[in-house]
């Protein structure tokens, strides 16, 4: 609606680009998508995300949607969730899925790993107490196997238990029968996923490729 509007948007985008690390073009495309999802409003609510039909088949649907509204992912160091998010928050969450640049230093790589693993950790740690307890882990595995029918539910618990045992053995070593392992802390989480090259795996191509090949919509 006028040159001033677009100039302001340009300026905003540039600002966002600097802060989140996306290119201008990617921000433009993401903005288009944001507008589409929020039906041209300024903010995005849970219903908007829930209405995406393609997500219906996804067992992690609820958690993914929650992740967008989780304050910890929005660089606000407090617990809790927000009801609606703006474009900038949308971008902040999306920036967790940027791939690593080709030539980065070791510390940058480490920082990137921590960031991405932090995102995953927050997804598991639903009560925001800084540890993933056995209950939370069980729930996570159950969600993962939720599309697998009744067989899945029962084994999910066993799998979560086995996984927890593994974490405890690798991080705490020998434990006395009376000791109790409260839960997976972020440091433990980092440790067990050390060989899991997350900085290369956790990315969405879209955020890196030439947007001419992007198919927006639906």
């Amino acid at each position, binding site marked *: 609606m006028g040159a001033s509007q677009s100039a302001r948007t340009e300026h905003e985008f540039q600002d966002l680009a600097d802060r989140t690390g996306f290119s201008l073009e990617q921000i433009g495309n*993401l903005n288009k*998508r944001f507008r589409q*999802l929020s039906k041209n409003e300024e903010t995005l609510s849970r219903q908007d*995300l829930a209405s995406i039909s393609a997500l219906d*088949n*996804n*067992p*992690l*649907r609820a958690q*993914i949607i929650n992740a967008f509204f989780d304050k910890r992912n929005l660089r606000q160091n407090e617990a809790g969730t927000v009801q609606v998010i703006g474009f900038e928050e949308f971008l902040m969450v*999306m920036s967790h*899925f940027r791939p690593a640049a*080709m030539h980065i230093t070791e510390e940058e790589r480490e920082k990137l790993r921590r960031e991405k693993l932090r995102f*995953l950790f927050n*997804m598991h740690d639903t009560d925001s107490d800084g540890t993933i*307890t*056995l209950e939370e882990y069980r729930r*996570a*595995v159950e969600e*993962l*196997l939720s*599309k*697998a029918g009744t*067989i*899945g539910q*029962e*084994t999910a*618990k*066993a*799998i979560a*238990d*086995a*996984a*927890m*045992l*593994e974490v*405890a*053995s690798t991080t705490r*070593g*020998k*434990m006395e*029968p009376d000791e*109790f*392992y409260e839960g997976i802390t972020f440091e433990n989480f980092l440790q*067990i*996923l050390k060989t*899991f090259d*997350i900085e*290369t*795996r956790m*990315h*969405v*191509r*879209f*955020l*890196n490729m030439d947007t001419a090949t*992007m*198919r*927006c919509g*639906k």
Partner: protein
Amino acid sequence: MSVRVALHSRSFLERGLLLLVILIFLEGTVLTLGAASSPDISAQDNTGGHDHLDDHRGIAGSHVHPNYTKKAFPVLSLDYHHIQVPFEISLWVLLASLMKLGFHLIPQLSSIVPESCLLIVVGLLVGGLIKLAGEEVPPVLDSNLFFLCLLPPIILDAGYFLPIRPFMENIGTILMFAVVGTLWNAFFVGGLLYAVCQIEGTYLSQVELLPCLLFGSIISAVDPVAVLAVFEEIHINELLHILVFGESLLNDAVTVVLYHLFEEYSGAGEVTPMDVVLGVICFLIVSLGGIAVGAIYGILAAFTSRFTSHTRVIEPLFVFVYSYMAYLSAEMFHLSGIMALIACGAVMRPYVEANISHKSHTTVKYFLKMWSSVSETLIFIFLGVATVAGPHAWNWTFVSVTVILCLVSRVIGVVGLTFIINKFRIVKLTTKDQFIVAYGGLRGAIAFSLGYLLDKNLFPMRTMFLTAIITEIFFTVFVQGMTIKPLVDLLAVKKKQEAKRSINEEIHTQFLDHLLTGIEDICGHYGHHHWKDKLNRFNKKYIKKCLIAGERYKEPQLIAFYHKMEFKQAIELVESGGGVKLPSAVPSQVSMQNIQPKKLPPPVAERALPQFTKGREEEIRKILRSNLQKTRQRLRSYNRHTLVADPFEDGWNDFILKKQRLIELEKKVRLMSNYLTVPGATPDSPTMCRARLASDPNAFYNIKASSDGVPTIQVDLASPQSPDSVNMLNEFSKRGATGQGLGQREGADRDEDQGLMMKPAGKGEKGEEEGGNKNPGLMRCLSDPGPSNEDEEDEPFLP
């Protein structure tokens, strides 16, 4: 000190003796081979031998005579001709295997020189010996033999065990290298060779363009056999391995098309643009057709395996025969047999593995490894023999230019392609990676066989080509093969990670898959993950239902992984523990109780619940399984056509089912689990364990009445007097308990099935004080005759 020296020298001596034996055997076989292989000489030998022997024994009248003269009945005669061909084949195979054995006796040698080099040297030696013996060297690397017998096992082994995930993730890169890279190599080498040939003074001007291009296409293909042989020993990281290996497999289509194209038109002398277009179409047909043929056979194999549950012995056969037929069918139409074989193996594997028994799976794996190993060894030996056999036409210019050009074109090709590819890749290929990819482009026996197939009349310079091909193969295998290992170490290229897959990683792999698919959906981008997810859902919904027997198609990957892990652990424990001993395994460092949150605050009078450590649980499981095994085995009669049903394995499926249902029931048990425990003995005594086991049935039996569909666990006891039951009984007899082992075994079964679950506290002994009544309680459960009587027993145990 002297003992050690003596031992040392003894082992040295043993090794030396073994090598000597091998060498003597070698000599013997070589001479027989040499003597026997040349057909006319052998025939002469045989008849000569016959007469000779007959005369020797003084048996008269052995010549053919019009009047039949009765001759003495030949007690012993030699008829080599009768068994000649299979005998020779077996001798060669035996030779190859003994050589393989021999190398590993000398560890220093096998660490410096890759096996393929040593085998070629052996081939050279054998060929040399045959030649020295005066016989004609047999043309062993016959193209038919190679393409129809020696190559398929190796390719099938590679295709069946192809790691699909990294392959598919890098498919774009692999295809670029395979197709564009090979084309580039072929034309570069062919073209420049022609240019060199035209130079005056090389006496090569009669070599025309098309034969040069043909030669270029033969020599430019990276060979899967050589790559496998060398890369297997350097343990390089998965990405590079799959890149080079995938390229070597997929460039077969290009090679086939180029080869046929140039061979066809070498006669005509020119290639029109129309031919080029046809060539491109042919390429598409060859590759896609090969894959289609392979996929069809793969699906057929998967479908067949669905019905093999009653004839487990022939299951592996289906895998092999269907794959081989896929290869032959593709070759019939001049499609790419290699791609057909890869497609067949990759398509059938997930379904077949879900259907066939564990033993068949092991059989398939070991047979494939065995055949491919023997094939590979034979191929290299034959290469050596064929080199000695000749004929050779050495031309310094041609050969040296070939070798140099191949290297140069490979390097330029890889660097150029990587530059383009890196624009599309997330994980870019570094210079080190490029170097390894370029250096790992080894040539091998396929090039030689293709050259051998050339018609002598159409290509008068065939011998020169063959010489050049052999030189190139030797160069790549020896020089590049030997130096790649130290270079990998020098450049500090990332090596293969030996870490075992942990369950946490598996969980997070799945988690990430779904997460990324979700994010892609939110972005609205139909990317990589979206399509993969769609394919998986299609697979689960339709395909798996048809191709996988029974209920197993519903199993998601994570659960299958978990079962596999449990299975492996149990087997490891059985193998390491051995024998029915008391649980003495080192308990794992952390056990369930450490991570389970404490449930209710323990009531004052309650003692701490003894918990099983994971290790002990496993031991108990193992003991019980071996008991079950013994009892069942006694009851089956031997039948050649059925494997002795492995109760361990058949029981596994039941075990899983039982476990599921018991877990459901356990939930209900928990609801009633406010009973006091009445442990009398110290928590760790075996008695205590068994007592708890024994008393479980009570908790179980309560629920049983209310729900149907619980499997009655039929335990066929061989006899109550089996050693184990006696053992356990003795323990209880201390406490004055009598009774059969039946109750406790049933209970043990329950316990086994509950696995890692925390035992409910309930023993149905509510209201009883500690001390006094526990013995009668135990006695009661021990004398429990079985499930059918539970109704009567219910009352005393439940309020």
